[in-house]
């Protein structure tokens, strides 16, 4: 029988995969992909908890997370294009101008 703990542990595993990606990625586009993985993991946790308590609030929050993710992608990709025009690269070591 699949309970809520299965879903939450899976969500934790997916979130840590995304978090590991955020920590080790040096390319900004790949870093964006990792944040998408993290957002999806949180959505699974919301839906699972909402299902467990018979509550629709979990699904509502998942909807708003999806809306935030969509607008984040639109603004973020615009910024990436501006950065690529300025530096000719998306590598964080090239883009970083502050030393320390």
């Amino acid at each position, binding site marked *: 029988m699949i309970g809520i703990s299965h879903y939450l542990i899976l969500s934790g595993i997916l979130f840590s*995969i995304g978090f590991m990606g955020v920590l080790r990625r040096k390319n900004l586009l790949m870093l964006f992909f990792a944040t998408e993985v993290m957002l999806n993991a949180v959505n699974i946790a919301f839906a699972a908890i909402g299902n467990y308590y018979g509550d629709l609030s979990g699904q509502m929050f998942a909807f708003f997370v999806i809306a935030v993710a969509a607008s984040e992608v639109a603004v973020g990709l615009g910024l990436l294009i501006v950065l690529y025009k300025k530096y000719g690269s998306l590598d964080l070591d090239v883009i970083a101008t502050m030393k320390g």
Partner: protein
Amino acid sequence: MEAIAFYVFAISTVILFGITALSKNVLYAMTSLAAGMVMISGFFFLLGADFLGVVQLIVYVGAVMALYSFAMMFFDATKDIKEKHGNPALVFLLGGLMALVFVVIFSAPIIGENMEALYPIVDGVGNAQAVGMVLFTKYLVPFEVAAIMLLVAMIAGIILAGKKMDKSLTTTVIEENPEDEILKESR
């Protein structure tokens, strides 16, 4: 039956998102991310959140991935990405510790038993109908704010991406205009 579906979806999402987090090729990472999102919508259907699953398919797999693939055309996606990694042991230590913390945080609601449903799922009504009833009554203001936020994001995306659109991104070699040559020669 539910267990089989859960484990199939779980293993495939973990593998696909692992490829996303570890691959060196942008195209592979993006494709595996899209496939993993399709698998995640399977979890939503398993959990009885049909409308959320459909929204996940349309918004994430449809819109967001199309946006990513359009943005990829601006960058050079064919060559592998070289990334310099300073200290992999530190990254693994931090990632492992954070994973532990997140598992504890996500498992915490199992202990809290005295929670009550704020907006209980109505019997005899489909999931899309129930979602609509809650979304347009209790969550109406956040819904409108989300709509304004999407509008702002759209305008920001157009303005940011539309700057200096006449310049080419991928061709770094400055091309001589052949008409200028002819003009120079005629002078």
